[in-house]
């Protein structure tokens, strides 16, 4: 292609180029002046560097670590023999210990350590520690120091322990010598010594010692003294860090859990801290098994423990997921008093809990408003803390303002920068000011920003100028004032201010075309002082864009062209485009110029981007100038109002990390924490708003009522939020997707996936396609009638061999993920249950042109904890147009989160191309377990005890089956007939079934023979009484709806109120029968 062009335009180009290369000296003159200014500028800013004095001091102190600084007296003693130190007394100064630098000191120390005099021994140990501190190797003294361990002097003991912690690892064999003393000390009558021993032992990371630690630790965990217990609690975490398996085998975790109920608040706090730390490294274990009772205990301890303990407890509370909005509210109520604590960390942790649980509260609630109001003052108060804490607070406020701008919208003034603020505080405040800027306060903000633009710190000034531009773009009414402010600033002629101002004015032009072009003249005056690429590019853009209004646009651009090859790529590209624009606007005068720039870009440049752009313009211009005009001068898309907002998924995650490092860095922990820890992505709790309608219909937004929605995925929009929180870490037993390399990308990928999901109807199975989601407890039978009947027809038509079913009903495969939405990967599938195991049968088809490989699958948390039991195994790469069938075994031990509808399952599939997301609904009968047959007596007893409100009924019309057929059909899907009787000619069937999470459903079916003239067994009505029992039964019922999808009974959803999703609540509430019924304990 280049050759083609060369032939065409070659001669002309050469000629023009030569003609243009005559040097108009103007640019050259401008250059050195710019450089001079640079130098001057650097010179004028000595303040930006650290004070030289300090620096010098440090380095000299380092080079002479022992000889300087602390005054002559103590140092001068170094020349004396060591013995003199002992005589000088032990009272005031320890600094002398740092002074023995002579050779042979080890020997002297050895002698002293073995001295008979206690005082001398102590002195010697102090010297050893001092040497250790400055980095000298004193490990040779190990046996001698350990010998000093047997003492009743607590201070000496502490010193020896300190030594041990440091050197035990390098001398493991010798360290064994210390074990006996440790064990003995753990039984000392003095609790301080017991605690000291167990504390130190945990810090010695030698396997052999660790073994001996177990017994003393066990005793100390049950010590009568709370001081020892609280120390032992932390020791479990230490031990877990050394040897996790050991801790589990020894049952320390259970003991630690018991400590949460300890009578002493500090023990509780330390136990919580230890458990949280252990739980963090085992995300899937429900170690920190929080339930309403334990939460209550924590909240009580919160009022009593130290400030640090309060932080541990609050941080732990933040990980809890309340069952419903009421619980969330009651926790919030008890946490709010912490906002008045003097310790900023307590306040921030409380804010974290509140911000998180607020997600669950309905916005219409009075309490929600109260809470918002209560949050503002403490956040403002944080700004009067020490600067370092202010910084942490401001970084967090930055997040909070993005998540809930309403909290601080009236508090603009407190973010005004103070002259003496450290620079890091200033920059953060500025950022928040822009976020809070609105029409109401823009005048004040602008006045402030103008002040800041005259300060000293270059970064700060630049940011302030940029902020003015952002205000203009954000608040349209202020644009004019912003522009005039910027012009004022340009008049100051301060180099970097001018450049920054020009960059932002470019954005203002783009946002408000044809409004402020009158200022162009002023901008052009400063052309020569621009030396930064971004500013030059912006200026060139402005000249090119408004070429028709600038008389000497060609001259201006030509002047830039002089040093074309010295410019940065950004400027070169912009210059090329600008000149083409100019040419299209004033074709007659600028033909030469355009030739020149095109040849510079295409012939003399090594940069492929530049060359390509040059060729495209060239070709466009030579073939079809009209088209060129349309392309180059096309209307530009609007620029967005808010810049550098944190991406919403990340923001939600960061809100869960308020107060921690993640919130300071604005990065998820995985970005800066090594290893597997911290991989768990935290997520905000889902709003419960839509399903609380039965209790408070006014609280639920209209139209979300599931009963009114015939579509399959009515709440999908809401669910997207949940999908975003897709848990890439824990529950799956290590599919490739969880590999650390993906962690970082995951967030972005999810963001991308969101769009495609939003546009698509999520691929639900067609069997569910027409069905309606039935309503909550207040179901009117008639409501369900229509869809049910048609569906039943379908189902019962299918029936060939009734009663010979070997497994439960399996729906045909349906397309879950259409190829066009997944870059050529089509996934269809269905769920089945065979002999007690659930599987997901998938058909993967490659409809793309490239080979697919590296498949992996992952589920979001879901109502029943469904998770893949094995990785997705696609052994050979999937060639184009090839498909593969896979049966993916599932289990129900994953983590649990209530979904809406309950049987919604969100899935992420990864291959070598991308990650794709879809969601599907699984039929509930795959969760019916084989031992769901209840004993008759039990059934009877239970049946009577079920409260009325747990009951629902509806009918199914036109079911062409008799009682026996129904019974056997149901049995095929693990719904068992317990009894059958005939009442007034109607067959009554009593059924029971049990879900994987232990929830029982009992039903009564009444089969009314319809039209007697029909010869056979036509069933016209079915009555279902669904009753439920669950250990979680005491939870407010109306908050939970349970959508039963059962293909064996009905190919549709039948709804009935039901228990919550499996909860970790122990079976205490309902007494004997239910305990038996639950079958197995909850995990």
């Amino acid at each position, binding site marked *: 292609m280049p050759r083609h062009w060369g032939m065409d335009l070659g001669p002309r180009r050469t000629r023009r180029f030569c003609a243009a290369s005559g040097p108009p000296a103007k640019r050259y003159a401008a250059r050195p002046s710019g450089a001079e200014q640079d130098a001057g500028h650097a010179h004028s800013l000595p303040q930006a560097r650290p004070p030289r004095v300090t620096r010098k001091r440090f380095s000299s102190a380092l080079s002479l670590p022992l000889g300087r600084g602390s*005054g002559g007296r103590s140092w001068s003693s170094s020349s004396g023999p060591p013995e003199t130190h002992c005589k000088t007394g032990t009272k005031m100064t320890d600094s002398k210990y740092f002074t023995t630098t002579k050779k042979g000191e080890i020997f002297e120390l050895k002698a002293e350590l073995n001295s008979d005099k206690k005082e001398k021994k102590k002195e010697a140990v102090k010297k050893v520690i001092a040497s250790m501190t400055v980095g000298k190797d004193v490990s040779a003294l190990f046996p001698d120091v350990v010998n000093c361990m047997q003492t009743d002097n607590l201070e000496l003991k*502490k010193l020896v322990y300190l030594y041990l912690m440091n050197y035990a690892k390098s001398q493991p064999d010798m360290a064994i010598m210390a074990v006996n003393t440790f064990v003995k000390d753990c039984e000392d009558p003095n609790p301080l010594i017991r605690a000291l021993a167990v504390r130190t032992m945990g810090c010695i990371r030698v396997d052999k010692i660790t073994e001996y630690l177990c017994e003393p630790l066990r005793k100390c965990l049950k010590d009568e003294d*709370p001081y020892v217990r*609280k120390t032992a609690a932390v020791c479990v975490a230490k031990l877990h860090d050394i040897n996790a398996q050991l801790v589990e085998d020894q049952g320390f975790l259970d003991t630690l859990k018991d400590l949460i109920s300890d009578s002493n608040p500090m023990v509780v706090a*330390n136990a919580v801290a230890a458990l949280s*730390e252990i739980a963090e490294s085992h995300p899937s274990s429900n170690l920190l098994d929080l339930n309403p009772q334990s939460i209550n205990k924590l909240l009580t301890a919160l009022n009593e423990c130290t400030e640090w303990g309060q932080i541990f407890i609050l941080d732990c509370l933040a990980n809890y997921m309340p069952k419903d909005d009421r619980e969330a509210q009651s926790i919030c109520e008890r946490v709010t008093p*912490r906002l008045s604590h003097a310790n900023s*960390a307590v306040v921030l942790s409380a804010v974290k809990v509140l911000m998180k649980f607020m997600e669950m509260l309905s916005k219409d609630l009075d309490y929600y408003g109260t809470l918002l109001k209560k949050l503002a003052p403490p956040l403002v108060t944080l700004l009067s803390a020490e600067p370092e*804490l202010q910084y942490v607070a401001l970084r967090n406020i930055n997040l909070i303002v993005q998540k809930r701008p309403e909290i601080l919208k009236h508090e603009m003034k407190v973010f005004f920068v103070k002259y003496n603020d450290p620079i890091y505080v200033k920059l953060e405040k500025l950022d928040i000011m822009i976020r809070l800027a609105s029409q109401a306060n823009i005048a004040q903000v602008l006045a402030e920003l103008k002040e800041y633009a005259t300060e000293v710190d270059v970064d700060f000034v630049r940011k302030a100028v940029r902020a003015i531009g952002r205000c203009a773009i954000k608040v349209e009414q202020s644009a004019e004032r912003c522009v005039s402010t910027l012009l004022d600033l340009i008049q100051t002629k301060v180099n970097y201010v001018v450049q920054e101002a020009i960059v932002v004015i470019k954005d203002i032009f783009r946002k408000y075309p044809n409004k402020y072009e009158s200022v162009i003249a002023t901008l052009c005056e400063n052309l020569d002082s621009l030396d930064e690429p971004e500013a030059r590019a912006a200026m060139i853009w402005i000249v090119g864009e408004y070429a028709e209004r600038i008389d000497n646009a060609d001259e201006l651009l030509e002047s830039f062209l002089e040093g074309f090859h010295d410019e940065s790529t950004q400027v070169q590209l912009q210059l090329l485009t600008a000149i083409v624009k100019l040419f299209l606007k004033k074709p007659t005068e600028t033909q030469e110029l355009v030739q020149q720039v095109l040849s510079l870009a295409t012939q003399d440049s090594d940069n492929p981007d530049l060359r390509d752009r040059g060729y495209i313009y060239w070709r466009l211009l030579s073939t079809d100038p009209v088209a060129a005009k349309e392309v180059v001068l096309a209307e530009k898309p609007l620029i967005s109002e808010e810049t550098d907002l944190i991406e919403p998924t990340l923001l939600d995650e960061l809100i869960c990390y308020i107060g*921690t490092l993640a919130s300071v860095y604005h990065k998820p922990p995985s970005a800066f924490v090594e290893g597997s820890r911290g991989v768990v992505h935290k997520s905000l709790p889902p709003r419960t708003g839509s399903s609380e309608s039965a209790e408070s219909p006014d609280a639920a937004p209209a139209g979300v009522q599931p009963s009114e929605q015939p579509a399959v995925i009515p709440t999908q929009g809401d669910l997207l939020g949940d999908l975003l929180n897709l848990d890439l870490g824990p529950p799956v037993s290590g599919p490739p997707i969880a590999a650390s390399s993906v962690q970082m990308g995951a967030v972005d990928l999810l963001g991308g996936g969101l769009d495609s999901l939003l546009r698509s109807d999520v691929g639900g199975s067609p069997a569910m396609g027409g069905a309606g989601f039935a309503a909550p407890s207040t179901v009117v039978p008639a409501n369900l009638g229509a869809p049910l009947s048609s569906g039943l027809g379908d189902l019962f038509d299918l029936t060939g061999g009734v009663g010979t079913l070997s497994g439960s009903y399996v729906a045909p495969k349906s397309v879950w993920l259409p190829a066009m939405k997944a870059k050529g990967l089509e996934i269809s599938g269905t769920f089945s249950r065979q002999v007690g195991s659930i599987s997901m049968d998938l058909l993967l088809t490659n409809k793309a042109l490239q080979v697919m490989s590296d498949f992996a699958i992952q589920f979001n948390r879901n109502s029943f904890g469904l998770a893949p039991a094995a990785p997705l195994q696609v052994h050979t790469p999937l060639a184009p147009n090839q498909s593969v069938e896979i049966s993916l075994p599932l289990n129900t031990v994953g983590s649990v989160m209530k979904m809406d509808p309950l049987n919604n399952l969100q899935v992420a599939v990864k291959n070598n191309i991308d990650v794709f997301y879809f969601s599907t609904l699984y039929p509930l009968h795959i969760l019916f377990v084989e031992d769901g047959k209840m004993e008759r007596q039990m059934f009877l007893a239970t049946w009577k005890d079920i409260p009325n409100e747990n009951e629902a009924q509806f009918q199914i019309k036109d079911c062409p089956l008799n009682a026996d057929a129904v019974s056997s059909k149901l049995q095929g899907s693990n719904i068992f007939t317990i009894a059958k009787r005939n009442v007034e000619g109607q067959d009554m069937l009593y059924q029971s079934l049990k879900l994987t999470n232990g929830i029982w459903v009992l039903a009564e079916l009444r089969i009314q023979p319809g039209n007697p003239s029909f010869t056979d067994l036509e069933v016209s009505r079915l009555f279902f009484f669904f009753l439920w029992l669950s250990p979680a039964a005491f939870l407010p019922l109306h908050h939970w709806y349970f959508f039963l999808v059962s293909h064996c009974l009905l190919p549709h959803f039948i709804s009935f109120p039901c228990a919550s999703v499996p909860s970790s609540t122990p079976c205490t509430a309902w007494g004997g029968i239910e305990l038996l019924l639950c079958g197995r304990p909850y995990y």
Partner: protein
Amino acid sequence: MEKANFSEDRHTARVAVKPDFTWRNAVDAFRVNVIHARQQVRSPVTNIARTSFFHVKRSNIWLAAVTKQNVNAAMVFEFLYKMCDVMTAYFGKISEENIKNNFVLIYELLDEILDFGYPQNSETGALKTFITQQGIKSQTKEEQSQITSQVTGQIGWRREGIKYRRNELFLDVLESVNLLMSPQGQVLSAHVSGRVVMKSYLSGMPECKFGMNDKIVIEKQGKGTADETGKSGKQSIAIDDCTFHQCVRLSKFDSERSISFIPPDGEFELMRYRTTKDIILPFRVIPLVREVGRTKLEVKVVIKSNFKPSLLAQKIEVRIPTPLNTSGVQVICMKGKAKYKASENAIVWKIKRMAGMKESQISAEIELLPTNDKKKWARPPISMNFEVPFAPSGLKVRYLKVFEPKLNYSDHDVIKWVRYIGRSGIYETRC
């Protein structure tokens, strides 16, 4: 969760816990990248090779905490401050010398207040019962268990069995007024941050209740007696926010807005508060700056005191910044002394005392060296320092009741002192 604390010259370095964490390297990394960094410190949190360093500086001592995990950053800083407080309480100023002299003590303290990166009880009162510079006295068994129960107990800040012959308490209401005013006299932002510091010398375990003219409380009480509302309504103040020492029962404050507590022995900060409404600004500064040509500036500053004539403000200092290229200054002032301090680039005007509702003035001529520096002088704001014997927020202590049910002394027997001091915080007027 590893925490280390290094002093300037590495004489004290200590790391609590974790594996594979070579603190020597960490110390070096911190020294090279933060302490001796080329540029000014841009953030108190630094991440070097996936290790995060938190630091605070006290004179020329750097205290740093180190971690590789996502720890609670606010807690770490609070802890570092607390560590400073504890060290100050034990051996006075934090200086290189003091740290060297007390390194064993510091080890011991750290061992006690930080376990595996988790801060433990760090109340100096409690710590001093069993960590002493003299070494541990041999304690009886009762004493030992008393120590442990105090360190871990609900009232970790006070020990049992304190006795005073004279029960006495001192309340200091210390406020700092912050102001940012435009040259035209418009208040851009103003707030008072106040502290109530209490020194208690009370026997036993006294239960205290503190009351002030908090608007919310007064309005609540006023509901009963209607006529009182009108009277006290004016005197009450709206508190934007307040925070309390950990001895105050926060849940009680939240529900009833009453401040009740068992105080630590000796001095402590009971509460901090912030107000922004109806602040009495003790001084008003009126600046006038005129540029006469390129080499001369004329500055006139008037200060007006705005409080009761019977009260006296003290230690008044007005600081008028001058350009960097100042060559000479002539000052005339009506009251006090004024001096041009070239090293600080400012005219400092000091007045020892000034009564309320008075006015004073200073005028100065500043000669400038001609420069070709294009950059304009940034005109930093004029700042002021002063001390006044009242609370600019209007806060009044209404009562502080003391109950000690076990010992036989009543509220009346306690001698109570209250003092109000208002100081300038950042009190600036732009010119």
